[in-house]
């Protein structure tokens, strides 16, 4: 096994993408994800890949659309305001059934907000973000190693289901450094008979488009896409369950909030409090089933978020009224401390 390397989350994403066979990166700089672009700018020319700093975020996502249409693994990355700009292109990719990886290293919002970490793009990521009926598979890593692992997984899922995948991180995850093993489980991209690679006069034209001229056909396309989403929901849910066996209190948290919460769970257990953690790794599809089952014995849920309370809506839907769901949060670039989460565990979070 090769030596581990000490990487920033952003660098781990970039290197993992290269290992996954991505040779086409299109982006536009924005803090706190600029290291992804900087890393690609250094590495891509050395391996015969393309790094292109586009004239805007909108241009970058449409370049991903074009490259994905031609059948290659392509990606873009940005941070919250930049992802909003990409919204139209992401919707077009979903409407054209194109695979691709979109990385969002979230910062505080709304608007220009700030450059410190946030998780307040949860709604935007899991509810679409662009227009129309569609979903992204949304992956939420909680370590630098997972940043690498989920990048590879993201390309695989995108190709498997022909849909865009979002890697949803935050400023802390992007900036923090941890040792990473780059022995990643890489599988080669599958054949893409639908790609626009030239007919060589041997087949009919492949057409990549999201425009439908006939309403009946558009309805059919939407229905077919949602059947595909049902399969994704059945097959691709990922979560981590921590100290949940006898838990009477359940924290639900992802990404950096889950790391903080884990410390709080360990501290509370030392005080004799029966608390556990469910960490969604896929935010869409959301691990609703495991949370719903937990609600049969858990007396109280706490959603820990770096937002005013967004994922809490999915937790409530999953719990379905069987137990109260409380919120523990910080916003504006601030991160809850383990002590704050511990207080929420022992004394209750903000009641709603």
């Amino acid at each position, binding site marked *: 096994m090769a030596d581990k*390397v*000490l990487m920033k989350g952003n660098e781990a994403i970039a290197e993992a993408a290269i290992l996954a066979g991505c040779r086409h990166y299109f982006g536009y700089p924005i*803090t*706190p994800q600029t290291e992804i672009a900087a*890393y690609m700018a250094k590495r891509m020319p050395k391996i015969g890949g393309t790094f292109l700093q586009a004239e805007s975020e909108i241009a970058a996502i449409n370049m991903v659309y074009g490259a994905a249409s031609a059948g290659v693994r392509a990606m873009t990355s940005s941070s919250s305001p930049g992802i909003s700009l990409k919204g139209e292109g992401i919707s077009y990719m979903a409407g054209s059934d194109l695979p691709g990886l979109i990385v969002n290293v979230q910062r505080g919002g709304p608007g220009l907000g700030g450059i*410190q970490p946030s998780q307040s793009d949860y709604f935007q990521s899991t509810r679409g973000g662009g227009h129309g009926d569609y979903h992204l598979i949304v992956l939420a890593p909680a370590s630098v190693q997972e940043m690498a692992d989920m990048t590879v997984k993201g390309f695989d899922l995108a190709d498997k289901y022909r849909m865009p995948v979002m890697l949803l991180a935050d400023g802390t995850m992007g900036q923090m450094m941890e*040792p990473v093993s780059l022995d990643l489980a890489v599988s080669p991209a599958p054949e893409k008979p639908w790609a626009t690679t030239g007919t060589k006069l041997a087949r009919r034209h492949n057409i990549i488009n999201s425009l439908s001229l006939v309403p009946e056909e558009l309805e059919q396309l939407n229905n077919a896409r949602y059947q595909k989403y049902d399969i994704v929901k059945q097959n691709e849910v990922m979560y981590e369950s921590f100290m949940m066996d006898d838990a009477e209190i359940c924290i639900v948290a992802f990404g950096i909030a889950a790391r903080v919460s884990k410390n709080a769970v360990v501290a509370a257990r030392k005080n004799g409090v029966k608390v556990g953690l469910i960490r969604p790794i896929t935010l869409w599809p959301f691990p609703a089933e495991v949370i719903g089952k937990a609600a049969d014995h858990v007396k109280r849920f706490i959603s820990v978020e770096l937002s005013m309370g967004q994922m809490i809506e999915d937790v409530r839907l999953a719990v379905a009224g069987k137990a109260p769901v409380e919120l523990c949060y910080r916003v504006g*670039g601030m991160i809850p401390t383990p002590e704050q989460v511990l207080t929420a565990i022992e004394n209750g979070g903000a009641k709603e």
Partner: protein
Amino acid sequence: MDFKRITLLAGHYGSGKTNIAVNLALSLRQTHERVAIADLDIVNPYFRTKDSQYSLEQAGIRFICSEYANSNVDIPALPQTLYAVTDDRNLTCVLDIGGDDRGALALGRLAPAILEENNYDMLFVVNFYRPLTQTPQDALEVLREIELAGHLPFTGIVNNSNLGDETTPDTVLRTVERTEALCRMSGLPLVFTSVHRPLLPALEGKLPNLIGLDLQAKIR
């Protein structure tokens, strides 16, 4: 270990420059009356010397840093007080330069005065476990890029190879050969090897000029 009036720390992004700079300033303060640390990072708005401002000022060290560090104002600003570094020759200074050649650009403004006085050490900090400087060749490439951008030649190497929390004595020892190769290729001496302080006992006697570092935690 003797240090010149100005010690500059430069190197690849994330090689550990800031942590070494803060530790060095605190250690110099034990033998020098007037010590300053200057943060010239124009690249990275995170993990700044500002995180250690409190402990530095408590130790009586002059803290020179952009007003905007650690704020949401994400612009490459330098503080006007930076000129104290070259104007006040009674000040012992540690300069924390931003990562890579882009970070070293900020140095150009001070380089002529530093060269003219010629009482400086410019140290190249390397961590061979960082992805883009895993070999002596790659590290040398970064070293040369920084010299070109900063208009100041390096005078020595600092081996700060580590794997964060997973660093063992062996992690450090396995980089000795690569460090020697980098020294040979660059013609520069190894000035010191820095390790997280708890690793010191296991490495004492095995490496020359070993320095223990305390990790800097953010205090708001």
